[in-house]
């Protein structure tokens, strides 16, 4: 590891390097905008929701609950349940927030998403000493693209094609396959990773639980196995 470079450069690197992932999220943003139009949301509501919630999948599921007539409480619970994984995500990069002023912890935690979290870990796996400002720079780019895409989606709702028809709904999966590859360090990862996969498969294939719970259970099961193992 090198000595960490200056904060501005790290911020700019994060801001730039997250662009492919941000475009992937932007495609979901357009889809969210379409849904928001069905819920009769306006641009202001979409912008405020994107800025304050800033968690795409949970926004989609919450607004989908409203559209299907589920009511506000069900919408909030469904969205929050989907976001429980963010607790594990912020906990797993505790060193990033450590020793920072409270406002920086608040800013960094709020700007942490699946994408910039994974990108930062991937950069570290390549041996680069990136941290807080890289995460925040990438998070800010994610926020800007997310706002542009969701507001464009609600504004031009009638003119936007279905992401599935273009195959772009697969962008997220493909991106995370690439990131998993970059996080692979040694054969010690093998058994925990297989455990995570098997737990997810056992929960999701018979339809016991929905995807977000399966992900949490699979991630925790693999990591716990790795943690309890000697010399792991």
């Amino acid at each position: 590891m090198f000595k960490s470079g200056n904060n501005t450069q790290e911020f700019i690197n994060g801001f730039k390097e997250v662009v492919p992932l941000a475009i992937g999220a932007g495609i979901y943003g357009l889809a969210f905008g379409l849904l928001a139009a069905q819920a009769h949301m306006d641009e202001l509501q979409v912008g405020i929701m994107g800025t304050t919630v800033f968690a795409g999948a949970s926004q989609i599921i919450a607004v989908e609950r409203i559209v299907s007539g589920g009511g506000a409480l069900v919408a909030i619970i469904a969205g929050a349940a989907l976001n429980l994984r963010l607790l594990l995500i912020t906990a797993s990069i505790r060193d990033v927030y450590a020793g920072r002023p409270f406002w920086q912890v608040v800013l960094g935690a709020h700007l942490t998403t699946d994408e910039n979290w994974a990108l930062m870990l991937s950069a570290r796996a390549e041996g680069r000493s990136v941290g807080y400002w890289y995460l925040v720079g990438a998070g800010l780019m994610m926020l800007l693209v997310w706002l542009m895409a969701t507001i464009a989606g609600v504004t031009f709702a009638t003119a936007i094609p279905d992401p599935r028809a273009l195959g772009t709904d697969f962008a997220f999966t493909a991106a995370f396959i690439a990131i998993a590859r970059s996080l692979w360090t040694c054969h010690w990862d093998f058994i925990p990773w297989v455990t995570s996969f098997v737990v997810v498969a056992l929960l999701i294939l018979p339809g016991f639980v929905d995807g977000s719970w399966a992900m949490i259970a699979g991630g925790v099961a693999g990591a716990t196995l790795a943690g309890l193992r000697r010399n792991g």
Partner: protein
Amino acid sequence: MDDIWLVILGLAAATFSIRMAGAMLGARLPQSGAWARILQSLPGCLIVALVSVSLLSGGPNEWIAGAIAAAVAILSRSLLATMVIGITAIWFLRHFVVF
């Protein structure tokens, strides 16, 4: 109409609390031993779980495209190449191959 503002407020508060709780909890857990090893292994396992959920929620088209994307990722180590070839593969499978 009021429902929308209520959901925005409720979900924003819940999501912010979850993110902060993780940052606070992480800081309070021990720096060594089993807990530290669990937190260290968590990112990789979570990403594998995330990919597993999205592939297993799909069908054979998604599984094949996922295998192709994994092969590209292993050989190229490139995020962009994996995304472009993965999307191309799923588009091709959905349009020209019937499962």
